[in-house]
């Protein structure tokens, strides 16, 4: 599956996150890939808003993992926001417990996921955000799994 969208402002990126968030459910794992400043924070906050997260979603860079109480389509879930930016070895991702969050009652958002590649589930949804500065952001959705096609097609 490949979907390609554009965003011309942080507000649009946030709104896209909100649309996407409404389609999510427990067990979903999303990887957010893009340079610093590409709009990962804005997208994550949009997703959090759609999932009825009440606290401000702050950067997980320092603590690696921040959990929030959330609600996905009427079902209580945990939204787990991870940032692996500061890790340098794949083993560290295991030590901090990344894999323990891939569960049916959790939705995972992983920034800088590359280092944990080996332990990610197969049906992960990958969002690649490209562009910087005043440029438009191009956001491509990619997954090996067919169920994402059914869920996302025409809904974003």
């Amino acid at each position, binding site marked *: 599956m490949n979907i390609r969208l554009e965003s011309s402002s942080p507000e649009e990126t946030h709104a896209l996150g909100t649309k996407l968030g409404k389609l999510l459910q427990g067990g979903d794992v999303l990887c957010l890939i893009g*340079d*610093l*400043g590409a709009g990962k*924070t804005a997208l994550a906050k949009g997703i959090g808003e759609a999932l009825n997260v009440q606290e*401000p*979603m*702050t*950067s997980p*860079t*320092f*603590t*690696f*993992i*921040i*959990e929030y109480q959330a609600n996905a389509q009427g079902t209580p879930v945990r939204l787990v926001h991870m940032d692996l*930016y*500061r*890790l*340098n*070895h794949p*083993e*560290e991702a295991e*030590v*901090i*417990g990344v894999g323990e969050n891939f569960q049916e009652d959790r939705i995972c958002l992983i920034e800088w996921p590359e280092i944990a590649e080996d332990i990610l589930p197969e049906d992960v949804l990958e969002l690649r955000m490209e562009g*910087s*500065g*005043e440029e438009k952001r191009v956001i491509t959705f990619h997954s090996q799994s067919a169920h994402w096609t059914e869920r996302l097609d025409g809904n974003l």
Partner: protein
Amino acid sequence: MDVVVKDNVALEKDIVILGIETSCDETSAAVLRNGRELLSHIISSQVKTHQKFGGVVPEVASREHILHLQGVVEEALKEAKIDFKDLAGIAVTYGPGLVGSLLVGVAGAKAMAYGAGIPLLGINHLEGHIYANFLSDPELKFPLLALLVSGGHTHLVYFENHGQYEVLGRTRDDAAGEALDKIARALDLGYPGGPYIEKAALKGDPQAFDFPRAMLEPGSLDFSFSGVKSAVLNTLNTARMKGITLKVEDVAASFQEAIVDVLVRKTILALEKTKAPTLVLAGGVAANTLLRERLTEVAQEQGVYFTYPPPVLCTDNGAMIAVAGYYHYLTQDYAPWDLNAVPGLNLA
């Protein structure tokens, strides 16, 4: 919860607290007498190990703590000429921080306190940073406003008394120190970012770039540093694409100016709102000279008392944990023996 300082007790017998801090980079232990007198303070820093990697690597961190903790505690007691039996209690950071690192300190402190038959005192790392001011400034009194700025946190906290506080504002995205770290990395300056940005900024023009200051909605005491971080990165990227070389010192100076400007403006707002007669600065970024100078000016203009710890007490350290532990001891706020590490602990 008011503190009842039992003067007669203090006179009869010294209250000696051992403080242990392993929440992040440092393994540190300190021995403190009667809340004011620092008998020893050992910091075994892992910064050199981490500089190789450009950040704290948790696995490395917890391993290093295991290797260092016992030696650091023994050294602290020896230098203080204090034996376990002379201690009134053992204070330890139980959060926030990296879980593996925290657990080493908590498990170690628990075993030592249980073995010695004395109270265990569980300390919030953020509270500890603020309490560092009680060690460096014996004149410090409540109520006070605290600006806590570090790699993981940016908070404005109003303290009515010991243990009685209200968080007035906090960051909604990146902490100030994190933004400094990330931009330092983008400028190839080094880790931790704050001191390197500060050094480069000395040779730069703070007006060279007009980076945004996020003030959020009127009256808000919250912070947001994600926007200014993105703005700097975008400036760097745009210049790179056009083949323009920017003066790193100018970028550093303008960026630091934007961060400090927001911190100062929000602090002024909080002083006006709370009418707090005293302002304290705390956390790793409290070592920043520009921030200290600006807040000194603000305090003079506003007629408030301003104090901040020396740089050694701004970093993660055992002395601040011992000070906070001392006040927990006075109020008999002891931790249970099943105290656990809480990586996501905040100021409630």
